[in-house]
């Protein structure tokens, strides 16, 4: 049974999974095992980064998004588009036409997440300006990174920005602005599994103001296959908000401060290790994304390569000559927005997976046992046992989750 406290949007199809171990090897938290020849996700470890999905050669791993049919449940429908969506290859169709096609699909309003980004960035700059107590701030813009800290680096949760993620700031704002609209549905076109998960199982807020998430890939196929266009209210972000679909945008905007910009989950892991050991020069702010090049590298985006997507977003951004949105005054929203929208309201707690056992004496016992088992193993990390490395396997055996003779080398010697 699934533990509802640790809901994930990642789904592995037992039918399509061949047990090839690709996903298991790339999981940054070692959260995948093979059980009976099929990949199995450990809920407590999964951070929804989408590395498994990206690396599955058999399309057996997907993210559970809602279907476009869910739209019919609402009388008034608002779609929030992530900035990274503008990085897609729309086969020569101008972005404005794409938006008009989205109206045709049944949306009454389209808001770019970039508007939320603008508010988020302005507020972040204000936090840095007034910063005295905290040594540094880690961005909360990437939900996978927030989860990564919960799972692997609990001591760094202390440094997380107190701000709500841009998309959630925007959704709450829209909900407030349209509170008199009956049966209003707010949809999000997610570029990645982490953002899908963050709508269904948010961290730091009680509940998300989004009703449904649609996969960017589904929406992409839809808008390319229709010819019709529709009309509706459009709220586009400025250059600043759109730029946040890619890495470097926060660093660029906060240029008066010491900011480091990191992208890629493995890079983030290395960095957090060093940060934990305090081996990093003094910093004010950490911009960090689970995907390479930021959200343009999102695993639900139908783009062939994150570098090309990054470049395409840069091109699209050249069309936005205004720094802030022309359709709405983000600066005055930032000045007047309520703090319960802007700030996280719940504590972001560590996930208990990291510890080997309830108490450290039991954990030390498991670690001792692990060491003894590891000495017997070939240490070539072949993955045939269903664990990502001999060390991880030894630990699984020590914890009693599998038996030593799942190792093909030991089995053949027996």
């Amino acid at each position: 049974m699934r533990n509802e406290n640790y809901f994930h949007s990642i789904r592995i199809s037992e039918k399509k999974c061949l047990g090839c171990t690709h996903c298991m090897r790339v999981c940054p938290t070692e959260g995948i095992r093979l059980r009976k020849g099929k990949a199995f996700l450990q809920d407590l470890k999964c951070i929804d980064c989408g590395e498994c999905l990206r690396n599955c050669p058999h399309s057996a791993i997907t993210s559970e998004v809602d279907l476009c049919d869910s739209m019919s449940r609402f009388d008034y429908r608002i779609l929030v588009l992530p900035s990274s969506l503008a990085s897609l290859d729309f086969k020569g169709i101008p972005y404005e036409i794409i938006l008009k096609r989205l109206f045709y699909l049944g949306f009454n309003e389209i808001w770019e997440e970039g508007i939320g980004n603008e508010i988020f960035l302005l507020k972040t700059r204000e936090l840095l300006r007034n910063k005295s107590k905290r040594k540094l701030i880690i961005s909360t813009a990437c939900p996978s990174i927030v989860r990564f800290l919960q799972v692997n680096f609990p001591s760094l949760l202390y440094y997380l920005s107190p701000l709500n993620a841009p998309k959630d700031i925007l959704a709450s704002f829209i909900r407030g602005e349209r509170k008199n609209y009956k049966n209003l549905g707010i949809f999000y076109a997610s570029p990645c599994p982490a953002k899908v998960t963050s709508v269904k199982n948010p961290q730091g807020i009680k509940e998300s103001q989004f009703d449904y998430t649609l996969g960017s890939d589904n929406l992409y196929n839809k808008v390319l296959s229709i010819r019709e266009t529709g009309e509706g209210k459009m709220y586009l972000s400025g250059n600043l908000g759109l730029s946040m679909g890619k890495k470097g945008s926060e660093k660029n905007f906060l240029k008066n401060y010491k900011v480091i910009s990191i992208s890629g989950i493995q890079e983030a892991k290395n960095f957090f290790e060093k940060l934990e050991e305090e081996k990093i020069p003094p910093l004010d702010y950490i911009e960090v994304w689970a995907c390479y090049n930021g959200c343009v590298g999102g695993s639900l985006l139908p783009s062939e390569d994150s570098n090309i997507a990054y470049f395409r977003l840069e091109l699209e951004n050249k069309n936005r000559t205004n720094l802030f949105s022309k359709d709405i005054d983000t600066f005055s929203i930032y000045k007047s927005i309520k703090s319960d929208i802007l700030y996280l309201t719940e504590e972001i707690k560590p996930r208990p997976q990291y510890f080997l056992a309830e108490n450290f004496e039991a954990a030390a016992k498991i670690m001792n046992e692990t060491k003894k088992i590891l000495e017997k193993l070939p240490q070539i990390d072949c993955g045939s046992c269903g664990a990502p490395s001999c060390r991880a396997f030894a630990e699984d055996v020590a914890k009693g989750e599998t038996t030593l003779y799942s190792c093909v080398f030991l089995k053949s010697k027996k």
Partner: protein
Amino acid sequence: MLEKALLIEECPVRGGDFEHGGEASSKIKNVLKRLGINDPIIRRVSIASYEAEMNIVIYAESGKLILEIFKDKIKVTAKDKGPGIVDIKLAMKEGYSTAPPEIIEMGFGAGMGLPNIKKNSDRLKIDSKIGDGTKLVFEVDLR
């Protein structure tokens, strides 16, 4: 009778290997993290271990860090083959250093190593034989 350690981890350290200097204390930190030891204690042990490790890298030919976990304390032993410490009392003083200029240029050897270990531990003991080596033991209490 001495109480038996619940867990022992040995991490080798190579003298002069600045590229990998810090890996042993990093390993110690990761072991403590997985055991579920409190963050403030991990921090103290990490800082002290790093200083002890860098002392081996800077001054000695070779050595190792040995982590021992007991019910009520964490013990780290840093053993090296090296020149030894001539005057331990003096070495314990903040700012006192015998590091050559090229080491100081790299940002090490500021004379804060041993004082930092003392500050971040509950007990510190140093035995040194000139021309032979140094054995440094520090302990951090778990309660």
